[in-house]
């Protein structure tokens, strides 16, 4: 395959994974107004939990779904037991999520060790798919398809259901939503479960490409932050476009300008914060 085309496919694949990571991050940020610095850890811990399920002999997709469920429970627990008690104390919430991310990193190192673990590509997706005389890796295409399916499902949930209407109201103005009788605290828990679950699922999905290693959380979190700043907090469309932009910037930046790859990655975030703090599609400035 042409090198540039391969790079393009890799960028879109990374964009798909990043969308799964950042969609929940964006909703949590938009609804609760806190940057959840544990979100990269949800991705990594989900991947490690998936590794354990695979070790028990489960199939790849079953392991990914169970890891997502486990992360949803863990995420919901963190919201209910820790963050809710710190409501309105944004600095405390940021510090607690940062502290938790270090604790989760240590826990992962203790349980799963320090060696990178590479996950096998799921059966049936290890080959290549020819499209218009070009051969694409099947698993990478599958990631893109799954990301699109989840994006559509989340969009339908947010834009077409009563639950979505209540979540949008909470993102727009949580105090007003409470005054009209909406139980915003329950929405917080739900969004936290959803965001953590999807991030955990993405962690397992990313395993065959990125592998699972200590520090994966710290690699993913800044990317999610850039995406949410670019796309705007609480915006699904923003998270999707931001993910694809970051996917391209990350891959092409590292190949074309490896010395300044991080400048290419972070400069758009800096400019957006300066000139359009609400992001491209955001409802609020962070």
């Amino acid at each position, binding site marked *: 395959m042409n090198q540039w085309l391969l790079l393009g496919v890799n960028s879109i694949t990374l964009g798909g994974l990043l969308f799964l990571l950042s969609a929940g991050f964006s909703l949590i940020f938009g609804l609760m107004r806190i940057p959840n610095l544990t979100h990269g850890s949800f991705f990594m811990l989900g991947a490690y939990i998936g590794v354990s399920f695979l070790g028990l002999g489960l199939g790849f997709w079953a392991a990914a779904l169970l890891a997502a469920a486990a992360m949803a429970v863990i995420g919901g627990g963190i919201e209910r037991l820790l963050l809710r008690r710190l409501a309105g104390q944004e600095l405390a919430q940021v510090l607690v999520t940062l502290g938790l991310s270090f604790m989760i990193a240590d826990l992962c190192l203790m349980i799963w060790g320090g060696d990178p673990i590479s996950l096998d590509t799921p059966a049936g997706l290890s080959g290549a798919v020819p499209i218009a005389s070009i051969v694409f890796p099947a698993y990478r295409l599958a990631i893109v398809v799954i990301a699109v399916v989840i994006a559509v499902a989340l969009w339908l949930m947010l834009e077409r259901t009563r639950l979505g209407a*209540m979540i949008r109201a909470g993102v727009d103005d949580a105090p007003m939503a*409470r005054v009209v009788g909406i139980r915003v605290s329950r929405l917080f828990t739900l969004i936290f479960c959803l965001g953590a679950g999807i991030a955990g699922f993405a962690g397992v999905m990313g395993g065959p490409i990125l592998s699972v290693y200590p520090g994966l959380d710290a690699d993913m979190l800044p990317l999610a932050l850039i995406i949410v700043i670019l796309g705007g907090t609480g915006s699904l469309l923003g998270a999707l476009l931001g993910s694809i932009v970051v996917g391209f910037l990350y891959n092409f930046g590292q190949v074309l300008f490896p010395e300044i790859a991080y400048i290419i990655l972070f400069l758009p975030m800096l400019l957006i914060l300066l000139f359009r703090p609400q992001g491209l599609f955001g409802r609020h400035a962070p």
Partner: protein
Amino acid sequence: MSALAIKDLGKSFGGLRVTAGVTLALEAGERRLIIGPNGAGKTTLFNLITGELKPDDGAIALFGRDITALPTRARPHLGLARTYQIITLFAQETLLHNVTLSLLGLSPLRWSPFRRLDRQAVLIERARAALASVGLEALAGRPLAQTSYGERRRVEIAMALVQQPKVLLLDEPFAGLSVDERKDVRRLLASIPRDVTMLMIEHDMDVALELADRITLMHFGQIVVEGSRAEVVAHPRTREVYFGS
């Protein structure tokens, strides 16, 4: 039994006492105006009544039921609604969606989370009727962000009224409105049926006094004078608060 009864309500922010020993009783159907200089604690009192702030001491009862410890979201279910001094609605959504959300919050339909909101004919029709009652039916499909401040004020009042409140709190409903918009809102408030008890904060005395049965004057977080319009205007403490001793 009072519609709204507040007893010895107190709230401090650190060393700053913003509400102290506030005791207030509104009879059903009463229109009460709260006046006082900036910083008197009027909006804080509203935030305490709706539960957006937790009181340090004292109690609040709605038709005899103690609601002091109830969360904010539970109070509209008991008939309490409010508007804000600075309008804070769902700006990205249409007028119709805003009013429908206000209905959804109190409707058992909120427990069917995965059904479409815009297909609930009952809610939509009630929301349209509420918008018609404030003269905004023609703008139902317009995003709130594209409406004037006066129109948003009327949407806010429609959102409160559609919940069929028993007690309605209005925080400076005439603030920021043009002369014509003030007339519209005054007509609208005057048309609210007498079974709705109203507590209103307002600085525009000419407009507000027409609507109020009784007046309460607050200063430094305390109630200093309470009575009819004539009693409050004639009271020496009123002159002292507004013009100095």
